């Protein structure tokens, strides 16, 4: 109940902001922050709960974005349909990639996911209908009422998608599925010998994670009115999606949310005040600091402090 009230308040704030604030830049920046909330939450389902470090975020994100763009180009499909198609395609990719790669562990799995990004990017680089390497220009339709601007509409939509992604992650975390995934992370052999169908569960996590990453990318072509492979399959998405849960904490659904809001906001501020080139450096420095000083992230630090103050 507390979760749904907080989620409702957060979403209401997004709607109020869209209705009252005039400066569009806030919505451009806010959209990116919320998009990283979706990506980080999606990453954490496989990377955080099951302990399988996935560098393939751009593959799922990019496939979602391209699915939406191609569908729009072919049929002028509405946004809802684009998002649904993106989730389906990226989910299917997650399932297929999971079946092929989740027998690998540790660094071998991580390498396989990087290879996935290269493969998918190469496909879109050579697909002329989708614009090839030069990309595809898209003409946004007018925003749906009551929104007066398309970017504000996308911002509110992304807020709703972020709430949905976090709700799904929370459900998984608290269910028997989440317990099984945590058992896999702690000891895969012991989990299997405790009756956990480890491969099936990992493939499920990879499918859900992939689908949510696809959802994160689905509105990107409309947000930019443009899509091209080099920036869509950029490894910065992988780093951001991985760094946010590491900074916030991978143990619970709140960690990626806190991490993504903190990291993406800092990145937005750095972009405006210093330069966009500094973005990756900020992520790198924060990641090193947290991995060394607080391996359980901000949530872990809070837990530690509350434990020591209650003694």
């Amino acid at each position, binding site marked *: 109940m507390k979760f749904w009230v907080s989620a409702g308040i957060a979403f209401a704030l997004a709607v109020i902001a869209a209705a009252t604030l005039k400066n569009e830049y806030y919505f451009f920046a806010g959209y990116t922050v919320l998009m990283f909330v979706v990506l980080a939450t999606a990453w954490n389902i496989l990377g955080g709960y099951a302990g399988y470090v996935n560098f393939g975020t751009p593959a799922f994100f990019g496939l979602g974005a391209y699915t939406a763009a191609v569908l729009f180009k072919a049929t002028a499909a509405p946004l809802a349909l684009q998002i649904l198609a993106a989730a389906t395609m990226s989910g299917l990719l997650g399932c297929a990639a999971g079946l092929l790669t989740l027998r690998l562990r540790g660094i071998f799995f991580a390498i396989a996911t990087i290879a996935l990004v290269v493969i998918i990017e190469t496909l879109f680089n050579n697909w002329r209908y989708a614009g090839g390497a030069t990309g595809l220009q898209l003409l946004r339709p007018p925003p749906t009422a009551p929104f007066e601007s398309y970017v504000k509409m996308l911002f509110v939509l992304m807020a709703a998608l972020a709430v949905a992604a976090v709700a799904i992650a929370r459900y998984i975390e608290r*269910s*028997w599925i989440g*317990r*099984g995934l*945590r*058992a896999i*992370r*702690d*000891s895969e*052999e*012991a*989990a*299997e*010998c*405790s*009756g*956990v*169908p*480890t*491969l099936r569960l990992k493939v499920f996590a990879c499918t859900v994670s992939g689908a949510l990453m696809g959802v994160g990318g689905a509105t990107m072509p409309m947000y930019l009115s443009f899509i091209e492979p080099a920036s869509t399959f950029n490894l910065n998405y992988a780093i951001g999606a991985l760094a946010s849960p590491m900074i916030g904490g991978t*143990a619970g659904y709140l960690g990626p949310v806190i991490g993504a809001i903190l990291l993406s906001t800092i990145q937005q501020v750095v972009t405006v005040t210093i330069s966009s080139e500094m973005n990756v450096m900020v992520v790198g420095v924060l990641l090193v600091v947290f991995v060394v000083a607080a391996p359980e992230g901000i949530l872990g630090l809070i837990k530690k402090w509350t434990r020591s103050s209650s003694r």
Partner: protein
Amino acid sequence: MDKILLKIEGVSKHFGGFSALDGVSIAIAGGERFGLIGPNGSGKTTLINCVAGSLRHDAGSIVFDGEEVSRLPAYQRTRRGIARSFQIPRPFASMSVLENLMVPLEYVVHRGLVVTGKTEAQAQDEAMAILRDIGLAEKAVTPSNRLSQVELRKLELARAMAARPQLLISDEAMAGLSSNEVSEVLEILFKLNASGITIIMIEHIMQAVMKFSQRIVCLDAGRIICEGTPASIVQNPDVQRAYLGA
């Protein structure tokens, strides 16, 4: 004698050019207390890994409760009634003691049911009952990474018990324990066997194996070198040679 619960027939396992098991055949009756001994590297853990499904054997067959289980993955074998503890304890470190038991309860015992608040509460009651039997009830909410060595050993057995096995494989559950703690774990294993569970004990503490087992098999270099009652095993010159190198 009860009917055969586990039948291992001509099982072999190679790691590259090294033969870890070479045509091992063992039949274990339901309700039996069975001891598996042998010097380090003799193939004991490899054999139970093959039985539990952690490893696939190269040749031979493993029949459990009348069903060929050789091709089944480990989780399917657990669901059919084969549970094991690990030589080096492998607790689910991010979970409490109680949660460790909830994993097999949810994935083996209450699997297929919609997990509602009621079934979760029922599973927790069952987990607590097992912890009380094993003597870990007081540690139910303790994170499993804060347990002592003997508590970890007990947790391994408790988690295996939560899968409601017909066969429990105890892989060196007493290694590194004091004599009092060995007696404590031994008592638990006797109690579990009295409730009808067949137990395979792999152990280096000979007093414990001799006291516990009704029948013992000794492995050396992947082969069975002798089989018999504890009294006959200690007299066997092949066993003495394997252990003492005489």
